[in-house]
């Protein structure tokens, strides 16, 4: 059997409706296509004509699991367009919200979506009996991360309090103390899970040396908003130039759009961030990195799961630092006395699964007249396909079930958010 067609029709345990088709000839990859089958939702069109303060509420509905990222980057983008300068306090609260989302999304992905593959189970449910301590850590960590989002943002999914100009309400001291007291346990638990993931036998590997991209701030590990974007094989560039460097093009043999940097596919997400920012981790984050035994820069997509765990430790520590600050200093009441002006603005941030860009223009009536959103899964889509070139020759000798499993694991390792990518243009609407 030298030719094989693998069709993962509706990939389970990812957010959204995606399909991967791989054709193998003579143990080599002939072609691979990753397809997005989610219904189109036209968000960039739906926000047209809306007043600036309505836009973040609508646009966060692009995606539930990245709803904090969409909310935060849209408020920054709109503030940039309208000439509004948010306060230091607002920056800190938004960071805390983003750390909460990183934790929630990464832990959901590692424990509920990815880990079942690594221990060869069909879901997290059988894990409750085979690995009860792991499932206990999952419920505790994921639940606590959701509590951060509820107490800071007002809700676990689609935050309410983060609005253009600042926050509509501040968390109570009791809530902040509660979160502060539980976070050290989350760090300890995550270290245990790093040890577990490292120890699991017979895992797939790839080493596709492609570029990796993330937002960039030379002073800190940027999870939430920065002025620049950087990449492993080159220099940082201004965020507003994203379309100049990260090229999207249609190719005649495929319906999907391809994102490239220097004519090659690239990756965004936890592993790229860690590759670029590891020297800026908190001390405990560095301990987690050492424990993980990742050798950076790491080109193995499967290691994205481990990178997520390292980031969890780092984000938990950063949350503790911000909570400590507010517990001792309290909040300053802010007035929302700004004077918005029409204009154009871009903001970039890191969603848990990678670089997220929002760009807006507002007209004289402060209504949205242009909107562009580029999601991490749209950037990663081409890389998902090109990874197969490296993976298939390594596993082509194995039974079909193994090949299917490793391909499923590859797609899941990106932690793709297909409902995100299907919000608009990156969606191929024609293929069948």
């Amino acid at each position: 059997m030298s030719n094989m067609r693998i069709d993962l029709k509706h990939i389970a345990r990812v957010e959204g409706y995606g399909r991967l088709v791989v054709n193998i000839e003579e143990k080599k990859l002939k072609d691979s296509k990753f397809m997005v089958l989610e219904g189109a939702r036209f968000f960039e069109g739906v926000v047209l004509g809306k007043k600036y303060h309505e836009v973040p509420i609508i646009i966060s509905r692009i995606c539930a699991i990245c709803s904090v990222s969409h909310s935060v980057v849209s408020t920054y983008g709109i503030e940039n367009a309208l000439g509004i300068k948010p306060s230091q306090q607002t920056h800190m609260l938004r960071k805390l919200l983003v750390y909460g989302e990183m934790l929630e999304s990464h832990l959901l992905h590692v424990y509920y979506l990815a880990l079942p593959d690594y221990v060869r189970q069909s879901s997290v449910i059988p894990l409750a009996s085979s690995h009860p301590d792991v499932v206990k850590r999952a419920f505790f960590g994921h639940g606590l991360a959701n509590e951060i989002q509820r107490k800071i943002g007002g809700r676990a999914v689609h935050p309410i309090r983060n609005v253009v100009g600042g926050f509509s309400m501040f968390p109570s001291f009791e809530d902040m103390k509660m979160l502060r007291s539980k976070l050290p346990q989350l760090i300890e638990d995550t270290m245990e899970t790093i040890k577990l993931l490292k120890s699991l036998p017979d895992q797939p590997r790839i080493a596709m040396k492609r570029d990796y991209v993330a937002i960039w701030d030379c002073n800190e590990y940027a999870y939430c908003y920065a002025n620049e974007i950087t990449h492993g094989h080159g220099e940082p560039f201004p965020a507003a130039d994203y379309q100049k460097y990260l090229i999207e093009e249609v190719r005649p043999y495929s319906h999907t759009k391809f994102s490239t940097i220097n004519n090659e596919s690239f990756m965004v997400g936890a592993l790229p961030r860690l590759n670029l920012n590891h020297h800026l981790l908190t001390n405990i984050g560095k301990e987690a990195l050492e424990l993980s035994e990742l050798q950076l820069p790491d080109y193995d997509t499967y290691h994205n799961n481990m990178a997520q765990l390292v980031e969890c430790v780092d984000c938990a520590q950063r949350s503790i630092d911000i909570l400590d600050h507010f517990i001792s200093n309290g909040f300053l009441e802010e007035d929302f006395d700004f004077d918005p002006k029409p204009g154009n603005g871009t903001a970039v941030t890191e969603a848990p699964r990678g670089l997220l860009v929002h760009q807006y223009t507002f007209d004289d009536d402060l209504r949205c007249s242009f909107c562009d959103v580029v999601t991490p899964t749209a950037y990663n889509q081409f890389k998902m396909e090109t990874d197969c070139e490296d993976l298939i020759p390594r596993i082509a000798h194995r039974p079909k079930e193994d090949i299917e499993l490793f391909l499923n694991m590859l797609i899941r390792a990106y932690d793709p958010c297909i409902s995100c990518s299907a919000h608009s243009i990156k969606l191929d609407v024609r293929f069948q």
Partner: protein
Amino acid sequence: MVLEKPKVGIFGLTSCYGCQLEIINLEEKILNLLDFIDLKYWRLALESPADPTDLDIAIIEGSASNNEEIEELKLIRNHSKTVIAIGACANLGGVQGMRGLMDENRVKSAVYSDLSGVRAIPVKAVHEIIKVDFQVRGCPINPKEFLSTVLNLISGRQPEVWNMPVCVECKIRGNECFFERSKPERFYQTNVCLGPISEAGCGARCPSNGMPCDGCRGWTTDPFIMQLIKEARLRNKSPGDIAILARRYSGGTTSQDEMMKKGMNVL
């Protein structure tokens, strides 16, 4: 006597997956729920069969926005005794339904330069396609309300229905009313609170977090729509703005068309 557990499937159509995420956010309570149900189908969390067969309860998130999804809904209905629609998309169309209230070509051409290949159809709430037996409202759903609906259903009770506006819950929470604030405060000028027309059950979630209600649970049975439209006019909202605001989540259903028209005629 051993009772067979009801067979349950959870399905996602076009949506942000937030309602399914809120189900996952129940954490260990999901495991408790699994003592009472046999979860056959849930792609977000389990390897699942290609198609649903022989279900007692189908739980559906999302709205239909292409022909495949309409076919999928019919298939689910044919294989399920009871259908629960969860979230604003499934019950009202969701925010993506707004394009049905806007200039459709303007919306689509903002996203696609070439419209010839776009296979999207007007957004439809689930009840516009198939019979829906029960609703869990909200964008996203309140996970506790979801759990109590399912538990009521499998133990043979009728799930709760509120039939009252969000204002009732807001008063119980002791929030200061957005309409009664004496001087312009945060966000007061920029928005109109939809509490008077929206169905309760969320615990007045947005007003309790410093933001006005934006109606994600849809209209209550007897909405104070005329008063709301008058209040909005007093705050210099144009008729177009009022229509879009009052129907931010409900562009995928025709059930509010008539009352909206009547209200707008009063202006």
